[in-house]
């Protein structure tokens, strides 16, 4: 009722001008995406929106670069590894922080969050490098995963704690009275109920790690171990010109895993949350 009234109350010209404005904003963001879809199949891609002699030549040329495909596999290893590490460490940590009250807990959480942006930020570049050097994890997969995990963990704990906070305590207490062990409660009750939250965190971590340039750039020396985000900056010819054909093809491949994963996770777990049931 009220919806139809608000529409009829708005004047026609107002609606038209709103639509035009939105169309302009949308096209501004849409053009690069269209380029991303067209350029990889263009025989002579440039910075314009253009498609001639569509084919897969650009991908074939990209395959000539021995490191290109390999780098995408590396990206998956880094991102999935970081995602798993975050879930394994972050879920128990946030559960404890949600259930055990101690003095200054909230302050502690906010300080954690503050650190989060420092650890993976450029301010910590030099100390991070030195730390990685001393720990002897330079140029290793786990080195990158550890640094990324360290950087993303506080924010992940912060978000996950919110999910566990909304899990009613009575769920665990009733299970306790039925005789379930702590581990059983975590496995049967807590994890399934906050699973959508875990899925959100996994996807978020995955995307963050996937697009992170700085950390693998500092930690990885060996070109065989470099992820896509770093590889992207190496597609130059001898003259220092960007090889647009390779860049375009690579860019498209680089975005696909994120989209596929988002779709899969959303379908399987759903980005929804049960929360408590109200009577």
């Amino acid at each position, binding site marked *: 009722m009220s919806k139809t009234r608000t529409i009829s109350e708005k004047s026609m010209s107002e609606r038209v001008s709103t639509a035009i404005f939105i169309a302009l904003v949308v096209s501004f963001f849409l053009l690069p995406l269209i380029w991303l879809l067209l350029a990889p199949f263009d025989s002579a891609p440039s910075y314009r929106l253009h498609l001639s002699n569509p084919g897969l030549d650009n991908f074939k040329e990209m395959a000539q670069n021995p490191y290109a495909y390999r780098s995408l596999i590396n990206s998956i290893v880094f991102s999935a590894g970081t995602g798993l590490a975050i879930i394994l460490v972050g879920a128990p940590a946030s559960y404890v922080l949600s259930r055990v009250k101690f003095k200054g807990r909230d302050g502690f959480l906010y300080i954690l969050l503050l650190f989060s942006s420092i650890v993976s930020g450029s301010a910590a570049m030099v100390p991070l490098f030195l730390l990685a050097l001393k720990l002897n994890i330079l140029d290793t997969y786990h080195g990158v995963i550890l640094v990324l995990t360290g950087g993303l963990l506080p924010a992940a704990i912060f978000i996950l704690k919110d999910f566990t906070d909304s899990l009613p305590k009575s769920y665990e*207490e*009733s299970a306790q*009275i*039925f005789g379930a062990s702590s581990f059983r409660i975590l496995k049967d009750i807590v994890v399934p109920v906050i699973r959508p939250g875990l899925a959100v965190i996994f996807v978020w971590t995955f995307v963050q790690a996937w697009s992170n340039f700085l950390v693998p750039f500092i930690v990885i020396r060996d070109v065989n171990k470099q992820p896509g985000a770093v590889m992207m900056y190496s597609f130059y010819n001898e003259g220092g010109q960007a090889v647009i054909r390779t860049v375009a093809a690579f860019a498209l491949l680089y975005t696909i895993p994120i989209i596929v994963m988002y779709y899969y996770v959303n379908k399987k777990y759903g980005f929804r949350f049960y929360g408590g049931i109200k*009577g």
Partner: protein
Amino acid sequence: MSTVTIKKITKVFPGGVRALDSLDLTIKDGEFFALLGPSGCGKTTLLRTLGGLESPTDGQINIDKEDVTWKSPGARNIAMVFQDYALYPHMNVKENIAYPLKVRKFAKAEIEKRVSQAAKALSIETLLDRRPGQISGGQQQRVAVARAMACTPNLYLFDEPLSNLDARLRLEARTFLKQLQRELGVTTILVTHDQSEALALADRMAVMDKGQIKQVGSPAEFFHRPANTFVAAFIGSTPMNLLDGVVRKGVIEIRKTRYPVPSSIKKKVKEGQSVVFGLRPEYAAVSKAGSKSGFTGKVRVTENLGTHYLVTVDCDGLLVRGTVPDGNEPKIGATVSLKPDSGRVLIYDKNSGDLI
């Protein structure tokens, strides 16, 4: 089916709050027992301590002869129904009822049998495939009870199981719960802040205040002979008249009103003792002025209670409440007298607050 014995249970929370103060209580086998009290009186803490969710600072809890004070909740063979029912949202009704049995490693066939029995007893067979979020509050409550029932515990603990239901449903659920408890015959402890719930459901009940038990007894005893002024003021749909008075020469002086000391307690009161005169409004009949015994004053307020009117009378600055049948209610400002039903007058000691 068990007897629960609570000996000198004390619970002090970090920060110094004394939720339970050296409390003794025995709950008999098969009894429906209600713990009643204002919020913060410790009733929920007592229930949680019985369930093992809180550990007492001092004291001992026995279920039958066994000391369970330090046993884990799961080892006590009890079932608890929570205020929010604590149904797991990711399991359907059937899985919810089966969960405690699964935890206790029952055989699959036995689980099936018990789930269908419990579902039948609570008429929720048609809901077994639904998720808790898809059923109504009343149905959720039944599922929670079914889940507790399927475990065949020795003791049921109910933590305000009816307070999340709307008023009509609550009455239905109350009758149903009482009937179910009779059939099962399992000792049940109910925590509630709603006295009508406690009075209606319980075989025996206890009123708590500040971590201590103020009175234990049957609902009728609570209504007719509250053991102290706290219980007297707490129990009853209309607040009891509690009037300060002094004993002088065989009569109780309450301002200008004199009331003879009831013969049953004549030997127990001393000359000059400060007492509290207790009388339920239901037992104070309002009539036109003129009767000699009782309170006389002007009508301040009349409240319609359906079949009766509650009349507040100003007797020399003291507000006394009485009742009058519907249709005979006096006008505001009229002078009336209140005649106490002599058998229902309760005299309390002013200092201790206890019934004399």
